[in-house]
């Protein structure tokens, strides 16, 4: 599938570089651009969009004084958060305590390296397209739980400890169904390569009144889609599965002792993680960057999809109660795991019979 030119190659060709130098410069520039796009999303999402969305759900107005639509709250919040004192509690386990807030956003950002975010004009916004792309994404995303344990364990705080332990329990219980469900997609697509998975969803499933419904796996296998969506919410720790933080129960979980820049990094990491969850969902079930119009605006459709997922997480946050930790584990191991394996076996059988 190497027919599509990747972003780093585009950069090095445009700059007229070749060989090792071209690879290095191309990769660095591409990574910087993609990373900044994602960080820009979180920058808009955290201080502004989240407030606006939650306010809309709760009959409030939220930020509207600073700049048009309150948009200047973004720099204002950034300055405010970074200007706060970084409090390092006595007895924290350094450098683990300092590394945890870096590992979280880094792991989520790494995941974007293999996500095909679609074309924007001549540029194909995908940094790398290895054969094991999907497995890599999940591997990167899983590093996040290591960060949460690091934070929880190193903070020398019992609430942090509880939050860290909850994070591990939760991620164990939900990552297996998540990946097993993703495997059913892999069986359909016949490849782990992310661009291949997106390309496999380009056919027409059926037509309704001249409107072609594509073979997005959300349409092909809605059951798997719901399973994946649920497991994804648990994986990124949003309501009703925001157990590792669970304010009102364990204060702020693993991030209780973090302030200032470290807190910002955690916050950032969580939002990047939401967007990564949205990106994986878009890639595996919603046709990647596909959408009406020319292929060259695919990136915009991709953005719409991951923001749609972000909106969904905020909706759930406003509307749904939080499950209890033991119920969460029970749903994960006794419900989701069984269902996801059933889905996998059924998919394998159906694909085997048809193909």
């Amino acid at each position, binding site marked *: 599938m190497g027919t599509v030119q990747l972003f780093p190659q585009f950069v090095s060709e445009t700059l007229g570089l070749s060989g090792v130098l071209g690879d290095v410069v191309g990769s660095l520039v591409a990574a910087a651009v993609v990373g900044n796009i994602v960080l820009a999303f979180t920058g808009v999402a955290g201080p502004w969009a989240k407030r606006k969305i939650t306010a809309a759900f709760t009959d409030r107005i939220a930020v509207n004084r600073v700049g048009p639509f309150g948009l200047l709250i973004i720099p204002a919040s950034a300055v405010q958060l970074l200007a706060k004192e970084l409090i390092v509690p006595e007895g924290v386990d350094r450098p683990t305590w300092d590394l945890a807030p870096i590992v979280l956003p880094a792991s989520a950002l790494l995941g974007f390296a293999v996500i095909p975010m679609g074309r924007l004009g001549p540029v194909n916004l995908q940094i790398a397209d290895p054969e094991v792309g999907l497995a890599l994404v999940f591997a990167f995303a899983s590093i996040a739980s290591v960060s949460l344990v690091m934070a929880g364990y190193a903070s020398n705080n019992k609430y942090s400890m509880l939050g860290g332990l909850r994070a591990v329990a939760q991620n164990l219980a939900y990552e297996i169904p998540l990946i097993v469900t993703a495997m059913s997609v892999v069986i359909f697509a016949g490849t782990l390569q992310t661009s291949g998975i997106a390309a496999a969803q380009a056919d027409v499933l059926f037509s309704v009144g001249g409107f072609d419904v594509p073979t997005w796996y959300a349409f092909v296998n809605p059951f798997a889609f719901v399973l994946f969506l649920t497991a994804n919410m648990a994986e990124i720790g949003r309501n009703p599965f925001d157990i590792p933080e669970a304010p009102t129960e364990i204060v702020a979980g693993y991030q209780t002792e973090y302030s200032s820049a470290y807190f910002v990094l955690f916050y950032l990491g969580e939002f990047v993680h939401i967007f990564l969850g949205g990106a994986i969902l878009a890639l595996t079930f919603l046709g990647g960057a596909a959408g009406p119009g020319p292929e060259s605006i695919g990136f915009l459709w991709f953005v719409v999809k991951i923001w749609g997922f972000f909106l969904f997480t905020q909706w759930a946050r*406003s*509307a*749904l109660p939080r499950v209890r930790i033991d119920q969460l584990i029970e749903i994960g191991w006794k419900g989701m795991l069984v269902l996801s394996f059933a889905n996998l076996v059924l998919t394998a059988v159906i694909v085997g019979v048809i193909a």
Partner: protein
Amino acid sequence: MSLEAPDTPETDDVPERTPDELEALLGDLVVDRDDHLNAPGFVIRPDTVQETLSRLKSAAGYDHLSLVTAQEYENRYESIYHLKKFDDPTQEVSVVVPADKDRPVSESGEAVFRTADWHEREAYDLIGIEYDDHPDLRRILLPETWQGHPLSMDYDRDRPQIATLPAHANPLEEHHLDAESDTMFLNIGPHHPATHGVLHLKTILDGEQVIDVEPDIGYLHRCEEQMAQSGTYRHQIMPYPDRWDWGGGGLLNEWAYARAAEDLADIEVPEYAQVIRTMGAEMCRIAAHMLALATFALDVNGDFTATFMYAINDRERVQNLLEDLTGQRLMFNYFRLGGVVWDLPEPREEFFSKTRDFLDQLPGSVEEYHDLVTANEIFQMRTIDTGILPPEVAKEYGATGPVVRGSGVDYDLRRDDPYGYYDELDWDVVTEDGCDNYSRLLVRMREVEESAKIIEQCVDLLEDWPEDERTIQANVPRTLRPDDDTEIYRAVEAAKGELGIYIRADGTDKPARFKIRSPCFSNLQTLPEMANGEYIPDVIAALGSLDIVLGEVDR
């Protein structure tokens, strides 16, 4: 759940004993009589408390220890156990236990009524009576290092007290309940998102499961009883009740003082004022229950839940009505002894139509809460069968209000010990049999609807009230001096339960003893019963479902 028609008193099924019969029942235990305005009082020896209480409880059916009052006289200390019946709270009896002036020791009633635990600790803390056989006689409101007992006579108020931070155990150090176990000690609070104020829960965890929780209160103690004792009956006490349950219950609190003081000074409140009081009080109940729903949603859903803002919005509407009525939004100070301070706001039609608008939209709101909260499967999964409080345990702890009604005990002073205009109106007492967090929430939500019914009937009455009969206050002397050595204990149904006031008059214009029976104080005592063995989130939910206001717990 049924409305007892006023003409069929509950006393049908609970035989009332005359004071003389009770005295005969107690026999030798009674050394003297000391009747209070509300109940016969029997003076007993300080070493026969348990025997007396258990005889009254098992043989005469006095199963509700509403309050323990302690006070110091010139020549003795005294503890009073105010007993009632859950089936008929108008049947009351007071057990008066004098204790020696030099060495005030009195037997503890804790073995008979669990609720005596905290009440006696408070008596020890503030007055200085020591209770024999008490399982855990420590200070409860003041710091452990406090010197002296502030409500005792020889207390030196000028002496500076330094509340040092005692060398508390390092909250991070290891904790083992016994040699084998591997438990963790966790401080929930005093500053925690879900403690609804400054409450400290000393929690022992085994993993995520709670094996012991001990509420540590007193952070908000503001000497309310002392302040009331330094104010005159007529005007200076009424502002204080607003500062007990500040969750919206202002007028309900004021009514507790008004009822006790009016009965003490024998003041008749005009009917018109009673209707206004009833209406205002039920508005307060809606405000308080809306806050309870809002914060419970915070505890169970998480802190971005839409339910919180929805409920606060509804509370805001009723708050606006109360503002129109009283001129204040929280600290109403609207009741006066003998009535209310002013009539309904002019133009009256506007106030009535605003109130009706509110009542018209309320069922829609309640429906929405049922859709959003109580019908939600996750919410039911979280709250049904968690925080179990069996009715017998609830009674044992003197739990009242929505807490005890959520355990299926049909107890509501508005109906069972009528005051105001309640017995003239058509409404129901709400109970639920689930005994869990869910039931307590349901009771509150259904009580909101009942309150709306009451308000509607009051508005109808007030609208047609002839203009020349609108007396808002009885003719009360400028200075009230109730007779020396008269004592009274009266309670009303506040938002959280039975809010009672004990007053002892000494012939001056200020009470000699002013004791507050806070429903939250008794309700909070049940938390360990509900929480032990459950998970941390259930403890938080149970605490939320108790709907405590720390201003009222600590006073």
